[in-house]
C-alpha cells in the first residue's frame, strides 16, 4: 500500500479513517523512538505522539501542508516535545534554548528520518519474502535462534534454513543497495 503524500493528505482531509490508521501504524513506532530522544520517558513520548495524531485528525480539514508527510510528522513531534519540555522549563534563557534545540533538531531529525527510511526498507523487504523465509530470518536475527534450533522448531532441515537465510540476505542486499548513509 504505497501512496503519494498529497493523496494521503487528501484522503485524511476527506475524513478517511482507514488512511489515517495506515499512516498511524506506519509512523507511530519510529516517531515514538524519535520523541524519546527529547523526552527520556518512553510513556510520555508515546503520549506526545498520540496527541499529535489526535490533533492532526481534529484539524484535518484545515491542513495545508506543503512538505512531505514524513517531514511534517517529524516536525510536529519535535514541536510537541518542545512544548512538553517548555512546560517544565520556564524562566530560562529562551534564545539559547531555542538555538540549541534548533541545531539539535536538524541533526536528530536527519538521523530519525534515516531511521524511518531504513525501517521502511527493512519492513518492506520482510513483507516481500515468502512466509517461511521471513519466519526463519526473524527467528535467527530477531530472536537469536541457531540454525539447528530453528530447524527443530519448524521441523525443517538445516539445509533449508541455510538456503532461506541466503535468500533473505540476497534480498536485503538488493533493497539496501540504494540506501545511502550520509
Amino acid at each position, binding site marked *: 500500500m504505497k501512496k503519494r503524500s498529497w493523496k494521503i493528505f487528501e484522503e485524511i482531509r476527506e475524513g478517511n479513517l482507514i488512511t489515517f490508521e495506515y499512516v498511524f501504524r506506519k509512523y507511530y*513506532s519510529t516517531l515514538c523512538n524519535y520523541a524519546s530522544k527529547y523526552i527520556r520517558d518512553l510513556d510520555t513520548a508515546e503520549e506526545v*505522539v498520540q496527541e499529535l495524531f489526535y490533533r492532526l485528525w481534529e484539524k484535518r*480539514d484545515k491542513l495545508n501542508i506543503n512538505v512531505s508527510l514524513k517531514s511534517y510528522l517529524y516536525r510536529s513531534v519535535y514541536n510537541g516535545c518542545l512544548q512538553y519540555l517548555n512546560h517544565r522549563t520556564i524562566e530560562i534563557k529562551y534564545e539559547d534554548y531555542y538555538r540549541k534545540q534548533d541545531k539539535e533538531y536538524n541533526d536528530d531529525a536527519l538521523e530519525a528520518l534515516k531511521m524511518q527510511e531504513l525501517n521502511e526498507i527493512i519492513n518492506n523487504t520482510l513483507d516481500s519474502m515468502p512466509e517461511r523465509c521471513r519466519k526463519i530470518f526473524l527467528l535467527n536475527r*530477531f530472536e537469536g535462534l541457531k540454525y539447528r534450533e530453528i530447524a527443530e522448531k519448524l521441523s525443517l532441515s538445516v539445509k533449508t534454513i541455510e538456503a532461506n537465510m541466503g535468500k533473505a540476505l*540476497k534480498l536485503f542486499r538488493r533493497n539496501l543497495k540504494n540506501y545511502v548513509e550520509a
Partner: protein
Amino acid sequence: MKRYRENKIRWGLLARYLSGESDNEEAGIIKKWINSSNENNILLKNIKADWEKINSIKNMKKVDVDSAWENVKQRILNSDKGIIPVPERAMVNTAKLFLYRSLRLAASILLVMGLAFGIYKVFVTPYLDNNTIVKSGSDNTSRLILPDGSQVYLNSGTLIRYANNFGSGSRQLFLKGEAYFDVTRDNDNPFTITTNDVLVRVLGTSFNINTRASNNKTEVFVESGNVQLSQKDNPDNNILIEPGYIGALSGKTLNKSKNNDINYMSWKTKYLIFRETDLQTVAEKLESVYNTSITLGSQEMANCKLTATFNNASLDSVLKVIEGSFNLQIENIVKTKDKVIIVGNGC
C-alpha cells in the same frame, strides 16, 4: 564446498558466516573468496553493514502500536469533530452505531430547540427591538453564539449587528472590526456578512474578517470551506476564496493571495510562533494581538531576530522572554497601561 566457483555468490554460505554458524573450514573458504577479488571484498563489507542496519532496527524501543491506535481511535470517535464529517465508507461499525445515536440525539435536541424557537418567535419577538448589537470591549476579545448555532469570536473593539429574526429565511449581519466566524452549515440559508465595502457570502465554513486591514480595507481569510467575496455596491463582481487564502477589495478589483503569516489568527488562538523574526515584525504582531502600542528604542534593535513560541502567554511574560533573549531593558509605562517602550542597544 570444494566446487566453489569464483564468480557465483554463495549467499547461503555468506549468511552462515555472518550468523556465526560457520566452522573454521568454512571461514577459510570465505577468507579465500574475499581475497580473490576486490569486488568480493566490497560485497562482504556491504552485507556486514546490512546486518548491522537490521540490528539497529531491532534495537529500537518497542511500543504497542495496536493499543496506541485503539487509544487514538477512541478519542477520535468520542469527539464531535471526529464523527460528523467522516464518510461512512471510512468508518468501522461501532462508529456507525455511534453516528446513528448522535444523529438521533441531535434530532431530538433540534426538535425541542425548534419548538422553543417557534414559541419565542411568535410570542416574544414582536416585543423586542428589530436589531441586536454586540460589541466587544476595547481590550478584550469575546465569543458569542448566534441563533443558528454559528460561533463568532470578536476581536477587541469590534461590533456586529443583526436582525432579531436572524436565522429565519436569511442569516445576515453587519460587521465592523475583526471577527472569526465558524458558520453552521445550512444550504437553504446562506450566511451573509456586510462590511463597509464588501459582501461575504457562505453556506458553512470558518473564516476571519478584518475590516481594519491596511487603508481600512476589509480582508477575508478563509480557514476551511469556500467563501464568496463580492463588492458591496456591485454583488455581481465576486470571487471565490479557498482555504489558506486572503481575499480583499482594492478599488473595484477583488483579489486573493496566499496567506503567509503563520500568526494571522493569533488574536484568537493566542498562539504565536516566531522563527528568526525581526523584532520590528514581532512588535507589530504583539501590538495587534495584545492591543497595545510598542515603541522600539533604537533602529538596531528592530533587526534583532527572535525565535520563540508562545501559547496563551500574557504580554508581560512575552516581554520577559524578549528581555531575556536580548538583554534589553524594557520599560513598561504603567501610567498609560497601553504603551510599551523597549529600550536597549540592539543585538
